[in-house]
């Protein structure tokens, strides 16, 4: 009788998480809409500039539907979101979903690329530092990662451009040609991905090192060694697996950050990504684009968190009790 009851509990746990996910989204939508709509600045006035006649601005406000009440506009917006309609951009005059959709094809691959690079760098050097604790390699890794965290990524980005784009002309200085030519697309994202990955890798390597050192000190490691398992086997089967929990949490957080937080790097490399779309939309008071993009980011973070919660529920037996 025990098994089904524990299954029920998992379902109850997941159900609760799901309800809280929905509530989070509702609250987020109200907050996003409320905060963004009270921003000073009128999109119509922005578009028509300083020579415009007041009546022309008024006519444009009417056309854009800005003269409706705040509440009516909120329900319009949320109603649209539910059926996947993000509304129409005020300034670009195209559907917001289309704008965001285009940008995702830059931001998502860039975030993934940076994440892959960052893990590929961080794992080996973090493990190396932990295993050679107190040695030259450890000091080297700690020093370099300290530097990696301290160097601002936009500065590092310019440095990369100077060397690889202007001096050697291996990679383009910026811009994104699209995915019709996947090689050129990947080339265009390489320098930005490296610039983004460096500080992330530094942080991740340090987390990896400390998590691994901590687990290596655990009693069960000593027990495993005492039972005759090889040092390598212990590290692979026991220490690393347990050290992965904090590391994976950080990777999850970094991914959300990379998706939305690449705005400075997008500017340096003039990539048409989500961060720059948001930035432009804010300066132009294209509020409906801002709202749509922020809502999407909130949604992705909330869903990732939900997925992590689910994974915990499946992996960690204590959560089922």
């Amino acid at each position: 009788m025990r098994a089904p009851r524990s299954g029920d509990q998992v379902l109850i746990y997941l159900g609760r998480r799901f309800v809280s996910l929905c509530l989070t989204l509702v609250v987020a939508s109200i907050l996003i809409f409320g905060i963004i709509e009270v921003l000073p600045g009128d999109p119509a006035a922005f578009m028509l500039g300083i020579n415009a006649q007041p009546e022309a601005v008024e006519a444009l406000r009417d056309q854009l539907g800005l003269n409706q009440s705040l509440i009516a506009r909120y329900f319009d917006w949320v109603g649209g979101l539910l059926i996947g309609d993000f509304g129409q951009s005020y300034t670009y005059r195209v559907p917001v979903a289309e704008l965001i959709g285009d940008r995702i094809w830059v931001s998502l691959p860039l975030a993934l690329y940076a994440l892959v690079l960052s893990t590929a760098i961080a794992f080996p050097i973090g493990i190396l530092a932990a295993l050679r604790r107190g040695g030259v390699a450890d000091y080297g890794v700690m020093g370099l990662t300290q530097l990696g965290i301290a160097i601002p990524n936009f500065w590092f980005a310019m440095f990369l451009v100077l060397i690889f784009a202007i001096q050697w002309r291996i990679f383009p200085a910026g811009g994104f040609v699209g995915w019709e030519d996947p090689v050129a697309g990947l080339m265009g994202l390489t320098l930005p991905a490296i610039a983004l990955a460096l500080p992330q890798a530094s942080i991740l390597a340090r987390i990896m090192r400390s998590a691994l050192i901590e687990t290596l000190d655990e009693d069960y490691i000593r027990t495993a060694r005492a039972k005759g398992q090889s040092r390598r086997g212990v590290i692979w089967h026991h220490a690393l697996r347990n050290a992965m929990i904090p590391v994976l949490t950080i990777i999850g957080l970094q991914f959300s950050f990379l998706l939305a937080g690449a705005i400075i790097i997008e500017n340096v490399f003039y990539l048409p990504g989500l961060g720059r779309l948001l930035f432009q939309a804010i300066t132009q008071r294209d509020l409906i684009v801002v709202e749509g993009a922020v809502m999407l980011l909130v949604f992705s973070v909330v869903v990732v968190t939900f997925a992590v919660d689910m994974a915990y529920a499946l992996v960690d037996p204590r959560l089922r009790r």
Partner: protein
Amino acid sequence: MKALVATLAASLIATTAMAQNTSITIGMQLEPPNLDPTGGAAAAIDEVVYANVFEGLTRFGSDGSVLPALASAWDINDDGTVYTFTLREGVTFHDGSDFDADDVVFTLDRARAEDSTNAQKALFAGIENVEALAPNSVQITLSSPSGNLPFNLAWGDAVIVAPESAAGNATNPIGTGPFVFSDWVQGDRVELAANPNYWGEPIALEAATFKFISDPVAAFAAMMAGDVDAFPVFPAPENLAQFDADPRFNVIVGSTEGETILAMNNSAEPFADPLVREAVALAINRQEIIDGAMFGFGTPIGTHFAPHNPAYVDLLDRSPHDPDRARELLAQAGYADGFTTTLKLPPPAYARRGGEIIAAQLRAVGIEAEIENVEWAQWLEQVFRGRDYGLTIVSHTEPMDIGIYAREDYYFAYARPAFVALMDALDVETDEAARVDLMQTAQEMIADDYVNAYLFQLAKTGVANARIEGLWENSPTQAIDLTGVRWVQ
């Protein structure tokens, strides 16, 4: 075998050279929000489409003169109220539809309609009626005589659009120009291709790409790496010396229509007092601002008028840098101990960098200007609409815009009745000598009233590959006209 390789290599080089010779990539700092010049004020819209995609009845030449475009000629009746435009024949829009008088009537009626969202609706205010006399002839009747109509119709806001395609011009512009719109990757670039059916002189380029690079450092890198062929309005004047020293590049320095002013809120104390305004004007050292904020690019101005305009009067002697006199004037006005005010700065470098210098210059005469950086949207709301400011710095980039001083609702709130009368007289005057006279009186009036402190005429500083020829040096309107651009060896 060797010969084969050589031929291959030669043909390869030839094709690359040819490809290079007919396409160009232009860098721009700001991306246009849409591509319809009749429905937005953003300079970036005109920069991409003016003269390239869209054409008006008339157009600006690179020297600011008004040239025939879709109208080959025009007649004015004796009292200056009826214009008859003769239209070019055999012109088609990019979607294949014919251009004729009905398109002109549609365009002008749409721009002056009640629900028009034209950013420069005032250009069309004097038009009473537009009538198609024949497929190639349009008559425009004005409510009062005006010599300005051909000039007004040369603006980007007055380009001719077709009723079939006007609604979609924001994202798919259909004009009559030498380039057809081909693609817009939002956030990255707009691509144009040569129009094979163009009515006018054939152009040298086959394709043009406008690339949007907002970061000045990225703009520098893109030019240096050869990703961009020209940056007609280069965002970082500090890098120009480096480009100038490099034989691969040409630095193009010209003038714009941008009068950069330190605007004062004439409707509120302390700037309602002309003595205070004069004191501010005398506290300013223009050359220091030009050198410090603009790296030496810019021409000092003493009134709100472009120095390259034949009607310009040099009034710099009305407001020389004289801090002692400025302190005296402040004391006379009752501010012996100075006062504190706000200095709201929009994003461009001329404002942000210039503002720091101006604040220091004002502090030297006892005026404490508290700097507040604002975005354009905030500036429009607070300064422009709400008049919630003491001082602000703006470059007024519209050509011949001294008329804004007659606008009652305008943000610096001048509108002195004598000045309004002057502008009304200018509107109906068609005699050129008399017009120049009126414009000069107007320049003197606003300089003598110290409406604003006049700083400098914004320079146009661009960079281009040294093998490119035909880019505009000056900027009589905000355009990147590619019709005369070609690669040379």
